[in-house]
């Protein structure tokens, strides 16, 4: 299928962004039915990528792209192998269903167009993450998923909880993204390649590098934050503030798997080391257990599912870290199965919420008659989640136990972790899928009845897909599992497991899990109470830690700002001049290169002495001036005298400029003084005078010493010879100074006049400030005086 030209793939990658552009317009026209039209975009993407499956199943890899920034060897290129193809199919396939579901879920919402737009933007970004071959492209798309996730979590931006969750997710995943960038740059530095497809040949070089651990930790920082690994898991449950389609799509089926994708992608080059096979299983296992335990505690359907998502991600990381062939096959199967069942369960939870008006599992019951289709979809997903045949989840769980089972203590520990985790996920799965539907009918806030087709189409399709994929497992393995496992392992792999159970430790472990799950399900209320008590006893969690971190950061920045920006001009000036003095005197003191004392010139002319005397007179006049205006004018005397010196020693241009600058300086300073309304004269305490005088002497003395040191160096005439020789020939100018300014160093001058311009603007705006002192709180539109909330907004 390489017949599909690179251009087509590029257009397909851009398609979600184009759809995002027209989404608001389309939604204005068609209302919630725009979902049908917009879902065509992901459907087209799905079909396009399906076209690659034959080639990829045959072990082929499709790459393509073009140069983006050739000078830095950065390309816009993609890599389609088993791993990225499976992800792309999941993203586009589930994406199409989610768009339809959104249309039903947010029907009549006045921001529906914007919502579609954000969803499609995210889809494009996520597709970019999994399809990217170039590191920088991967990073850009990675951060784009964080940003779109921020927009979607904060979609209901009038609620404080949404905004907090959005910022939290952005800080955690965006920060992780920066770690990832650093990690990728380290890898780039070690290997010299910036493309995933080329990187695969550099595994040994990378593992042997002294910077391997650094690269690993940075990449893990990115992957763990994105895939919500303990202790960075807290943002994911909070992200449930988003509308349910977002939770189903971003925060279970796709985006949170980006971290897992990255680990799988880099497994052939970073894996197979002690670090990899320790860090990943330990953190993954911890996440699995913590996630399921926290899920037990919840009563909100979405939160229960969110915490099991955390634990599923932990399981995936754990399996990826094991690195054995079976573990990889298990991770592949579980990843696909999880996307199908968890996406479906979230949609079911949203459906129940939509129709019954609550998501609290303790307030729901007996919905099976009212919502039969939803019940079927929920059951299908829950059976897959519980790992029961004949669904894909069953294959995954069998493979997991098959991979983990061994008799050494390390493996046994992880077997135990997996059994407990899977057992508790079994509990949650059925708690979500059975509790609301079975038992006596409970009065719900809304009168529940079956939702519209847009809402149940998605979960039902995913449930059927999980069933079919398991029933025709040879086909699934040929086109999905085996190519993906091969890509992760870096060598050809074949997945063979099927629905028919065969005797062995894996089956026994499955039975143990089911038994544990059934018992725990019966005791769910008691377990929940126990967990609630335990969490209350601990009283602190990473979520609070995040708040403490943020408030600490704010306090730190306030303290730093107070320190370096006290708001007093004299402190700024003193610091600035002290730094100048230090820069001038410091190096000479450090290297002991003091200039030799100057000798009195024998041939000093009378007029030269007169000019020097004028300088001194000006200086004395400044110091003893009675008022400020006199001091300013006296400063001018001294400046003019310096201009005279320039003139006498053959620098007419400089002298000319100095005259003008002095004149203007005096005029402008005098004008400033008249505006500032200061006291006519300057009264300072003696101590202040001493300090200011010392700083002044240090600066002046520093300049003097510096100039003396410079002039005592042997003068290198190369440049002046060059300019003198060529200014007439090359630049047609006799005035060397001017030729240097406008021709030889013209670009410098351009920069300088830009500075003049910007400084002028800054000064102008300072002069124009007439309003009373502005404070930070004034940025808040609600608190601005005269613009109270009652005035600015309509009271609804």
């Amino acid at each position, binding site marked *: 299928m390489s017949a599909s030209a690179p251009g087509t793939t590029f257009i397909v990658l851009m398609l979600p962004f184009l759809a995002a552009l027209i989404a608001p317009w389309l939604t204005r026209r068609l209302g919630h039915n725009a979902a049908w039209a917009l879902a065509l975009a992901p459907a087209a993407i799905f079909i396009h990528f399906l076209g690659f499956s034959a080639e990829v199943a045959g072990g082929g890899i499709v790459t393509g792209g073009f140069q983006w920034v050739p000078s830095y060897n950065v390309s816009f290129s993609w890599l389609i192998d088993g791993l990225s193809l499976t992800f792309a199919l999941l993203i586009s396939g589930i994406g199409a269903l989610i768009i339809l579901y959104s249309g039903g879920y947010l029907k009549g919402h006045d921001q529906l167009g914007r919502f579609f737009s954000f969803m499609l933007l995210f889809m494009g970004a996520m597709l970019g993450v999994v399809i990217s071959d170039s590191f920088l492209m991967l990073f850009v798309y990675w951060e784009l998923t964080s940003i779109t996730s921020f927009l979607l979590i904060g979609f209901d931006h009038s609620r404080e909880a949404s905004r907090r969750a959005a910022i939290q997710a952005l800080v955690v995943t965006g920060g992780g993204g920066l770690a990832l960038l650093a990690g990728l740059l380290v890898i780039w530095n070690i290997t010299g390649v910036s493309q995933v497809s080329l990187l695969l040949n550099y595994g040994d070089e990378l593992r042997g590098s002294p910077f391997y651990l650094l690269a690993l930790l940075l990449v893990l920082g990115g992957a763990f934050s994105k895939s919500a690994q303990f202790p960075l898991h807290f943002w994911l449950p909070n992200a449930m503030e988003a509308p349910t389609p977002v939770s189903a799509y971003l925060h279970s089926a796709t985006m949170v798997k980006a971290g897992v994708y990255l680990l799988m992608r880099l497994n052939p080059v970073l894996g197979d080391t002690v670090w990899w096979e320790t860090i990943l299983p330990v953190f993954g296992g911890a996440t699995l257990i913590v996630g399921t335990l926290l899920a037990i505690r919840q009563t909100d359907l979405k939160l229960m599912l969110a915490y099991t998502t955390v634990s599923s991600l932990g399981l995936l990381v754990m399996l990826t870290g094991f690195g054995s062939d079976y573990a990889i096959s298990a991770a592949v199967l579980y990843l696909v199965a999880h996307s199908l069942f968890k996406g479906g369960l979230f949609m079911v939870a949203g459906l129940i919420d939509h129709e019954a008006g609550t998501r609290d599992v303790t307030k729901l019951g007996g919905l099976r008659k009212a919502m039969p289709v939803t019940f079927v979809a929920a059951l299908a997903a829950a059976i897959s989640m519980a790992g029961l045949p004949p669904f894909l989840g069953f294959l995954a769980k069998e493979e997991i136990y098959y991979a983990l089972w061994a008799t050494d203590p390390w493996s046994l520990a992880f077997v135990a972790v997996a059994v407990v985790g899977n057992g508790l996920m079994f509990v949650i799965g059925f708690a979500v899928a059975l509790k609301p539907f079975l038992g006596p009918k409970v009065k719900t806030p809304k009168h529940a009845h079956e939702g519209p087709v847009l809402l149940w189409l998605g979960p039902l399709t995913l449930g059927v897909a999980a069933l079919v994929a398991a029933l025709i497992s040879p086909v699934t393995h040929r086109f999905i599992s085996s190519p993906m496992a091969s890509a992760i392992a870096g060598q050809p792999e074949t997945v063979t497991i099927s629905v028919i159970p065969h005797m062995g430790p894996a089956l026994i472990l499955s039975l143990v899990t089911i038994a544990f799950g059934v018992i725990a399900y019966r005791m769910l209320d008691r377990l929940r109470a126990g967990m609630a008590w335990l969490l209350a006893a601990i009283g602190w969690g990473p979520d609070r830690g995040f708040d403490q971190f943020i408030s600490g950061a704010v306090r730190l920045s306030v303290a730093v700002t107070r320190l370096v920006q006290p708001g007093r001009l004299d402190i700024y000036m003193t610091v600035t001049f002290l730094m100048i003095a230090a820069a001038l005197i410091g190096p000479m003191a450090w290297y002991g290169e003091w200039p030799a004392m100057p000798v009195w010139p024998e041939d000093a002319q009378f007029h030269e002495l007169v000019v020097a005397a004028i300088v001194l007179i000006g200086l004395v006049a400044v110091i003893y001036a009675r008022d400020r205006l006199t001091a300013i004018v006296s400063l001018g005397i001294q400046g003019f005298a310096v201009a005279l010196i320039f003139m006498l020693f053959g620098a007419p241009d400089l002298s*000319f400029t100095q005259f003008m600058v002095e004149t203007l300086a005096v005029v402008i300073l005098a004008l400033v003084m008249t505006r500032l309304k200061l006291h006519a004269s300057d009264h300072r305490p003696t101590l202040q005078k001493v300090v200011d005088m010392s700083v002044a002497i240090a600066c002046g003395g520093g300049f003097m010493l510096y100039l003396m040191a410079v002039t005592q160096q042997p003068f290198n005439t190369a440049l002046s010879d060059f300019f003198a020789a060529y200014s007439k020939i090359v630049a047609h100018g006799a005035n060397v100074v001017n030729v240097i300014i406008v021709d030889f160093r013209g670009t410098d001058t*351009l920069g300088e006049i830009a500075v003049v*311009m910007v400084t002028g603007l800054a000064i102008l705006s300072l002069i124009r400030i007439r309003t009373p002192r502005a404070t930070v709180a004034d940025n808040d539109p609600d608190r601005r005086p005269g613009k109270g909330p009652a005035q600015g907004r309509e009271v609804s």
Partner: protein
Amino acid sequence: MRTVIFRSIAPYLTSLMVLFSIFVLLRGHNEPGGGFIGGLIAASALAIYGIACGVAPVRRAIYFHPMAIAAFGLFMSAMAGVLSVFASVPYMSGLWIYPVLFGVEIPLSSVLVFDVGVYLVVVGAISSIALALEERDRD
């Protein structure tokens, strides 16, 4: 400051200084002078006019906002460098033409355009500060 003598002479003095500043600007390539110095002279000329006759006449006289003049100067200088792109030489290379007007050869160059830009930036930036300072608070 608002003496009759000063006020009467200021317009003439200002015109002379502006004229002189242009002279200094144009001769800068071969004699002491150039855009920076010329700009400073013109800026002080405008400052004098402002002190003598008030800011409003100055603003009327220069027609454009001084910051707009400065911005145009910066644009002009940058564009003078861009000209060299069309001659396939590096940015900011000087280009010269020698048209003959009435039998006099007048050397014109992109460098001159650049220097005029510098002049305008300096005049605009400094006189906008000076004029703003001279303006009394109206409110």
